[in-house]
C-alpha cells in the first residue's frame, strides 16, 4: 500500500440521536481537531445521519491482534450458559 500523504487519519463516530450509542462511520484525513470535525461533518452527516460527532486520531486506537482470535473469541460459543437464553421474555418487553 502506498504511504498515506494526505494528513493524519481520524476515525469518525456518529450518534444518530441523543441517547443512542456512537457508531463508527468511517475515517477522514485532517491536520487538527477542528478540521477533523468539519471533514467528518461534510462526509458523513449531510443527509441527516446524525446529531453529534466524535473524532479521534486513528493512531490512538488499540486493536486486538488477529493472531489472538482463538484465545479471545472462541471459548464462548460452546457454552450455552453464557448466553441469556434460559429466561422467558416478559410479555410486552421488546428490547431485551
Amino acid at each position, binding site marked *: 500500500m502506498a504511504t498515506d500523504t*494526505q494528513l493524519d487519519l481520524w476515525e469518525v463516530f456518529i450518534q444518530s440521536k441523543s441517547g443512542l450509542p456512537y457508531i463508527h462511520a468511517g475515517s477522514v*484525513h485532517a491536520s487538527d481537531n*477542528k*478540521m477533523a470535525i468539519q*471533514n467528518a461533518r*461534510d*462526509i458523513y452527516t449531510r443527509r441527516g445521519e446524525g446529531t453529534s460527532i466524535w473524532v479521534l486520531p486513528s493512531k490512538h486506537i488499540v486493536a486486538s491482534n488477529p493472531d489472538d482470535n482463538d484465545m479471545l473469541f472462541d471459548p464462548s460459543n460452546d457454552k450455552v450458559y453464557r448466553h441469556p437464553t434460559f429466561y422467558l421474555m416478559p410479555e410486552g418487553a421488546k428490547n431485551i
Partner: protein
Amino acid sequence: MTTKDATYTYTLRLGDDALILGHRLSELCSRGPILEEDLALTNVALDMIGRAQALLKYAADIEGKGKTDDDIAYRRAEINYCNHLLIEQPNGDFAHTIARQLFVSVFEFLFYTELEKSRDETLAAIASKTIKEIKYHMQHAIDWTLRLGDGTSESHKRMQTAVNDLWMYTGELFEMDEVDAQLMRDGIAVDLIPIKAQWHNDIKTVLNKATLLMPEDTYMQTGSKKGIHTENLGHILSEMQYLQRAYPDATW
C-alpha cells in the same frame, strides 16, 4: 422606481452571487487538493445553488412574467448578470479559492444577519435559512486562512499573494445605488455602510492572526451593478448555459 421593481433587482443581485459562486465552486468537483476538501468545497457549492434557486425563483415571481428560476439562470446575456466581480474570479490555486471564500463569506455573514430583519418576508425567510450555512462557510474559510497564512513559508507566500490579488474586487461589495436607497427607505434592504466597517475589522483580525498583511485600499474595481464584468464571467456562462442555448427547453 417602484418597490416591486427595486425588490426584483435586489433579489436578482443576491441570486446571481449565489448562482455564479455555486458554479465556480462546482468546478472544483474531483479537483480538490484532497478528497475531504473536495467534498467540503462542493458542499459549499450545493448550499450556494440551493440559495440561488430560492432567490431566483422569488425574482421570477416578483417579475410576474411566468418565468422560472431556470429561465433566469440560463437565458440571460452576460450584461444582465449582476453578481459582484469578486464572485466570478477564477479558483486559481487553493489559496485564491480560500481568499475569495473568506472575503465573500465574512461579507455574507454580516449581510444576511441583517437581511433576516428585512420587512420583505420572503427575503427574511431565505436569509434565516441561509445564515446557518454561511456560518459554516465562514468558519471553513477562516480556519484555512489561518492554516495557510501561519503554515509553511510557501503557503504563507501563496495566501498573501491571493489576498493581495483579490483585494481590488472587495470595494464593490459595499457599493449602493438607487435600488438600495429605495429599499432602505422601505425597510427591505441592508445598509452596507456599517457592514463595511465591521467587515474591515473582522478581516483584519483574521489576517493578523494568520500573520498576513492587510492590503492597502488603492484602486477598487467596479461595474457589476451596470452589467460590466471581468472576462471571467463570459467563460462561466458559456459553460453553464451551453445546454439550454443549444437545446432550448431540454429536460432530463
